[in-house]
């Protein structure tokens, strides 16, 4: 058996996070927040619009970095969490490949991106397609999947780079297609840095 995506998505979609008496959500070894998508997209577009042409790459890199570090640290908490152990690990028969399949099912279930792996060469390359992701609604010019870029890079690092927390920045993710740019899906390619 390998990871059955639909089963994982259905199981994880039922998981909701709730704040404690201090208004904090400690989960997956981090503090979680639950924010309106409009806030994240509005900030992203305004900061990109404010950047002069020669600094847009710097701003874009900062936004990807935020998602990357969030994905790397939170991702480690997710793939070692009770819920991941309970739902995904019993189906894992192909090691890191299946962990990654489970991770993209989790991305889908938790509303980050309706996404999955379409090509995977272990420890070398991964191609992701996303058919819905919140950054596609941002209304900006050009490719805007900064969050999924960061998350994809993070999870490939977690799967194939040195063990956590020493494997950061081993791989890099580029976006090659985007719903926001008129393509039917977003496409993201992870390769060695």
């Amino acid at each position, binding site marked *: 058996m390998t990871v059955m995506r639909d089963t994982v998505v259905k199981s994880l979609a039922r998981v909701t996070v709730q704040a404690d008496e201090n*208004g904090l959500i400690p989960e997956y070894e981090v503090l979680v927040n639950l924010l309106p998508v409009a806030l994240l997209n509005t900030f992203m577009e305004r900061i990109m619009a404010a950047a002069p042409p020669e600094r847009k790459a710097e701003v874009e890199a900062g936004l990807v970095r935020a998602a990357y570090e969030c994905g790397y640290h939170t991702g480690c908490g997710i793939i070692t969490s009770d819920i991941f152990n309970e739902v995904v690990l019993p189906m894992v028969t192909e090691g890191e490949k299946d962990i990654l399949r489970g991770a993209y099912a989790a991305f889908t279930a938790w509303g980050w991106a309706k996404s999955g792996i379409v090509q995977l060469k272990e420890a070398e390359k991964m191609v992701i397609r996303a058919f819905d992701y919140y950054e596609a609604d941002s209304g900006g010019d050009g490719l805007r999947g900064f969050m999924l870029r960061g998350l994809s890079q993070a999870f490939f690092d977690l799967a194939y780079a040195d063990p956590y927390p020493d494997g950061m920045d081993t791989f890099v993710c580029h976006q090659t297609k985007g719903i926001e740019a008129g393509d039917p899906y977003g496409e993201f390619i992870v390769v060695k840095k």
Partner: protein
Amino acid sequence: MALRLEYSHDDETHRNFLNGQPVVMHSHHYLALITKLVEDLADMSAPEILRDAVEDTMRAVFDDYIAKNGLTSAQDRCNVGREYFSVFGLGKMVITGDENGGEIRLLRSHVDEGWVKKWGVHNKPINHFTCGYVAAMFGAAFNKPARSYVVTEVASIAAGDSEGKFIVKTS
């Protein structure tokens, strides 16, 4: 007043909603790095961009809830923002004031505590996010247009204070 919370999930897109608003989970790493990014881009007025983006988008969330629930008193309207703050996992606040301004005590703070977890105590306040949030809260409570309030962070958990403090004044 206890905020009514309705969580829903779109089985086709798999997006999540809270009281009809699309929401998404991230961690303290994300907001700490966004905060650091705006600090690093201060010459581009990035802290102000973050504050204004938070004010405008949170205001829409508060106004939507207030309209749907027919809230009329300033206290109830203000409590929408205060209670949402905790629901979003952003921490816990105590509010005093009126339409001319006020003071917020931040007893717990996702942004500040996240910053400290990641980088340790900083040499100055960094919570631009909550400045924008508080401006939205006061605007919604007293039905004032955006940028009616100026919020200044005068004590900061990220900077080593035991709690955060924000002073609210009319602009």
